[in-house]
């Protein structure tokens, strides 16, 4: 009898040992799958982060998409490449994209390096905002510093392009400051963090004027009013722009007289 029970016990031990071993293997497989999924999740989140400001991605991941707007004081920077659409017609698409990505990369660096964020690209145009994501009492200084950094980055990039035998670029930048509503808006198909207010249009119009006055950076009185006195500005004739009553006071940015 005893030995029968012993055999049964031994058989059970073997059976459970086998079950335990299979369980271990299964656990290993599951753990590997879990690891792989975690990696996917992170990779996707990183890809996603390239399509929207990090803050927004985090908010959406945490809270989902909620309809909510905030009135904010923001400074808009609108940049456009002079004559680029003409250039785009005579150049190999892949080369065009390479030139453009290099340009966007550098402008992006100049903008985010001064606490701005890019709201959208429109063709070769860049619409950037300062103070729209986070309150920023120093937004005017930041935006003009960013514009000056863009000027420098572009000079640098043009040397690189010229060395490669590629056409160089020339940019016009318009800046305006005012209040508006910052919000994540859109539809089922496309959501975007955007800023609604006349400053967006006016910055684009002011940018248009850079061609007329043959300067690269123009700002309005609203920007000048809160600007550090160490920026050297040159007043230009007040100019009428479509869609805005009266004339707009504009100033060309020469340079920043800082120490170091």
């Amino acid at each position: 009898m005893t030995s029968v029970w012993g055999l049964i016990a031994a058989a059970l031990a073997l059976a459970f040992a086998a079950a335990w071993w299979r369980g271990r293997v299964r656990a290993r497989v599951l753990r590997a799958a879990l690891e792989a999924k975690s990696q996917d999740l992170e990779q996707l989140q990183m890809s996603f982060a390239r399509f929207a400001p990090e803050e927004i991605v985090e908010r959406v991941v945490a809270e989902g998409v909620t309809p909510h707007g905030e009135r904010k004081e923001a400074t808009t920077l609108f940049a456009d490449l002079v004559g680029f659409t003409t250039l785009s017609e005579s150049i190999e698409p892949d080369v065009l994209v390479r030139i453009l990505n290099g340009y966007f990369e550098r402008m992006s660096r100049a903008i985010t390096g001064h606490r701005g964020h890019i709201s959208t690209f429109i063709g070769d145009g860049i619409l950037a905002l300062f103070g729209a994501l986070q309150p920023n009492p120093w937004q005017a200084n930041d935006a003009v510093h960013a514009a000056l950094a863009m000027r420098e980055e572009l000079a640098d990039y043009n040397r690189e392009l010229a060395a490669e035998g590629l056409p160089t670029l020339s940019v016009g930048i318009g800046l305006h400051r005012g209040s508006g509503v910052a919000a994540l808006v859109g539809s089922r198909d496309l959501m975007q963090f955007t800023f609604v207010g006349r400053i967006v249009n006016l910055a684009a119009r002011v940018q248009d004027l850079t061609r007329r006055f043959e300067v690269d950076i123009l700002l309005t009185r609203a920007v000048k009013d809160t600007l550090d006195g160490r920026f050297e500005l040159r007043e230009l004739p007040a100019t009428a722009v479509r869609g805005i009553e009266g004339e707009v006071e504009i100033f060309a940015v020469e340079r920043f007289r800082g120490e170091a």
Partner: protein
Amino acid sequence: MALENIEWLDPLVDRERNRELEKYAKQVLGLVPPHAPYLAACPWILRADIHFDTAMAEIQDLADNIYLVVSRDNSCRWCYGASRLLMRLAGMSNAQIEKVEEDVELSRVEPRLRAGLEFARRVSRSNPAPDPASIQALRELGFSEAAIKELALFAAVVVFHNRFATLLALPVSTAERLAPFARLLRFLPLGKLNTLLRAQPRVTAAAPADDKGPFADLTMALGDLPHARVLRDTLDAAWASPILPARTRALIFAVIARGLENDSAEAEARRLLAEEGLESPLVVEDILANLASPELDARESRILPYVRETIWYQPAPVQRQGRALREVLTNAELLDTIGTAALANLVGRVSLALELT
């Protein structure tokens, strides 16, 4: 984004020994924390770190999760390590901790914790700052006025931790080093460490009623919360620190109040500036508007543009900016600057929330 993948530089300050500080830590905690040598040159920061423990009167059940979530929000790798250590000390397994993190991240938590976390995140982010609706939501879930104040203060305390740890780039290993042993540690007689970290609510003496120190309105409004007195003592200790002059300290508080759009904190900082002889509103406005002025000394001219970066940041860039500052400041000056900025972030955030209660 997994916190382990966030770029994190080497420490910005040198290790030093401060035997008096070590003795004090040993007396209170039963051991010298591994990050003590990085804070040796400016003792009030480690003292604040030790005193701001996780013992809560009203929200003890939420503390671990708030610490974890706010640290994640602030991308503080050091604090995240510290947070895991705390949970290990509480006897949780790695798997349990991961479960907590996942639940919290996916908002799969019960309503009280969820509301508490949301409010704490809002205090910590301050973008937008908490509003009457967020306070109302807490009240409806049964949070008392004292609990709401404690929640706001604790979230701001975590911001303080996150700030000094991230801005100094404290080596993550100093927070994580103990973790694997934590389960064992808690069974060993380690002085007051466990008592402190896992204590039942301790009631500390309330701040003195005749409080006249910096930000007295705030510390009095916090009443008899355990941390209110610690905050009072910390503000006094910071102001008594001989490394930076009081004027520079008040300027740091003013810049951060301006950045947070916190008018009352800015007014208090301006009052403190006036006490130090900077009385002209125009001059102060010029300084705050441009973070530059002929009135500033060379050191202040470097410190103020850096300080504004401590309000919202990504770790590696702000650590690089701190490293650049290190080249013109002494070890002790950088520590005092960062400790003060961390404290100003605490004060600026909690007072925005307190105004609503």
